[in-house]
């Protein structure tokens, strides 16, 4: 088992694109870390650099205590699961899983033992003599995982391994991957663009954008305390509402003025935010922190506002309300028994403790 360290890692492609820009990260032994971000953010390039499939332009990568900058992939003691599984189509499942061990000249009995043990873990014992084309997407995914497991590597690298599966199977495999990690306790680096996967699977999440690591932390930390507008907007479904307003102080109270309505800032946060009084800021509030007043027993009148409902979306356990207030569009996640009607006004209440404030210029969080 091993830790993985990236030290000032850069990747510049020959066409001039800077895919990874000064990445610094330490992944602890046995940790499950998820790289998440939109397409082209550099997450897959980072993974490929760790795998040795992409040369690094600058910086150092360590696996265990070894500097692996110039080490070929086969010597890094890693196993990788690809998005499209990358199974060898002309080999049956057994040989797909045994291929890496055969190349490393393991004894036949040991290969057989490992392949069968991995097949048992993944529930694919009955498929060992089948070719990949005779398998379903989920089964192929298991074989790809099996191929990684049999090697008993120091680090698992997974490049969007669930994105080719249908939604139901993805949820099922997500749980199985998490179980597998708990069982094997191998350092795992997982790349995805799906924030739900990131939130549910990772011990820690690395959020990336334009080649830059935006924030590293536990899922809840990142969700509750996003570093900047990008991270705040990227995690969470529906995404966080962002409202441009001016911070004002009156009669010892600080509030964000949105012209037709205002949100009061809780006193506990005055210290950090006072410097922005009189300036434009961005106020962020998650949909679950805006509720229908009917379902909030204790609320303060100054935390309420009236908005017009544009669309209601019943999700079963809750309802999403898409509302407009003073030219600002907001999404609220309210109780599914709300009486809100499209085109009708509704009185909503916010949880001021859960408001986020961002510097309009730097887009960084005002903590």
């Amino acid at each position: 088992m091993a830790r993985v360290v990236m030290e000032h890692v850069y990747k510049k492609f020959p066409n001039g694109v800077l895919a990874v820009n000064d990445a610094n990260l330490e992944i602890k032994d046995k940790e499950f870390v998820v790289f998440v971000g939109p397409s082209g953010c550099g997450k897959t390039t980072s993974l490929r650099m760790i795998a040795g499939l992409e040369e690094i332009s600058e910086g150092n990568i360590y696996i265990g205590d070894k500097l692996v900058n110039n080490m070929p992939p086969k010597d890094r003691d890693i196993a990788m699961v690809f998005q499209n599984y990358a199974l060898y189509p002309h080999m049956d499942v057994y040989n797909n899983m045994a291929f890496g061990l055969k190349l490393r000249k393991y004894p036949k009995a040991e290969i057989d033992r490992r392949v069968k043990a991995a097949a048992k873990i993944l529930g694919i014992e009955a498929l060992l003599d089948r070719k990949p084309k005779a398998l379903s997407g989920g089964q192929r995914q298991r074989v790809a995982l099996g191929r990684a497991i049999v090697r008993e590597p120091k680090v698992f690298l997974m490049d969007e391994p669930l994105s080719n599966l249908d939604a139901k199977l993805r949820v099922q495999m997500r749980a199985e991957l998490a179980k597998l990690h708990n069982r094997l306790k191998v350092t795992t680096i997982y790349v995805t663009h799906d924030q739900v996967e990131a939130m549910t699977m990772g011990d820690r999440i690395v959020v990336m954008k334009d080649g830059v690591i935006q924030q590293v932390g536990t899922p809840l930390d990142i969700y509750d305390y996003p570093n900047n507008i990008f991270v705040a907007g990227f995690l969470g479904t529906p995404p966080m509402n962002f409202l441009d307003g001016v911070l004002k102080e009156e009669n010892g109270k600080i509030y964000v003025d949105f012209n037709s309505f205002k949100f009061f800032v809780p006193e506990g946060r005055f210290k950090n935010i006072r410097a922005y009084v009189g300036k434009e800021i961005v106020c962020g509030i998650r949909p679950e922190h805006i509720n229908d007043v009917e379902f909030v027993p204790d609320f303060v009148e100054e935390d309420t506002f009236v908005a017009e409902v544009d669309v209601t979306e019943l999700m079963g356990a809750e309802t999403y309300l898409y509302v407009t207030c003073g030219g600002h569009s907001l999404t609220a996640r309210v109780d599914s028994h709300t009486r809100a009607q499209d085109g009708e006004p509704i009185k909503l209440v916010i949880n001021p403790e859960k408001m986020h404030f961002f510097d309009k210029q730097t887009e960084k969080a005002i903590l």
Partner: protein
Amino acid sequence: MSRTNLQVDEVLQKRIQIKTSSPKRLAMLFVEIVMCALAFIFLFPALLTLVNSFKSHPEIVMNPFALPTKLQLSNYANAWRETNFPVVLANTFLITLGSTIGIVLVSSMAAYVLVRFKWKISWVIFLLFTFSMVVPFQAIMVPLFANAKSLNLLTILGIIPIYIGLGCPLAIFMYHGFIKGVPLEIEESAAIDGASMFRRFFQVVFPLLTPITATVAILNVLWIWNDFLLPLLIIPGQTLQLAQYKFIGQFRQDYALAMASLVLSASPIVLFYLIMQKYIIKGISAGAVKG
């Protein structure tokens, strides 16, 4: 049960309707007639050769379209002896097999490197190969002969590298297109598994190239087996096709032996086609999709 039967009936009725709808049926009939006519035009010379191979020379001269009055099986025995059939057959077989294996190996490896190493020189080399396809053989015939002579290649084995050189451009072109469609991740996965570049190519990539390899092999077998001009320059009289030349010349015209010899020489390649036709069609269609 009855409901299922009813559904089956409906489907069958629809099919019958499609079959019997008159404009479509007429169109199909027309296509079938044209195809039959084309098949006859293509098969007629072969049929004529087969029929005449059992006739005597005077019989052929009198009426080439008539059926034989008596089966002249001696034509085959004489043609076999005069052409030294086992020897020329073995020569042709050796040349065809050696050249085809060489073309498949060299061009698949070359195309792999040209596709996977995206250097500027790769593109230049690929273009050079492509350009060489448009140079007619007649244009290089004389210098090729001179070079082959100076390199002592005017032998049965010496013609093999010449065929490999001439056959590679088209084969590289075909492999190049196909290899581009092989997912890179499969090779990367093999690299992580510990495979060297050669092992990656021969154990992972090459088996995936089977459809295009079949196409390349078949095209080259047909070309090399039937080739006349290059062996005539390099090894006169020593291949199956050159042996046919024996019966039609300035001082001799023996159509009976010529026809029997032609049937003998064509039969291995026809047999090859009949055995391989499933793979030929599969290979050509796979090549068309991927290439």
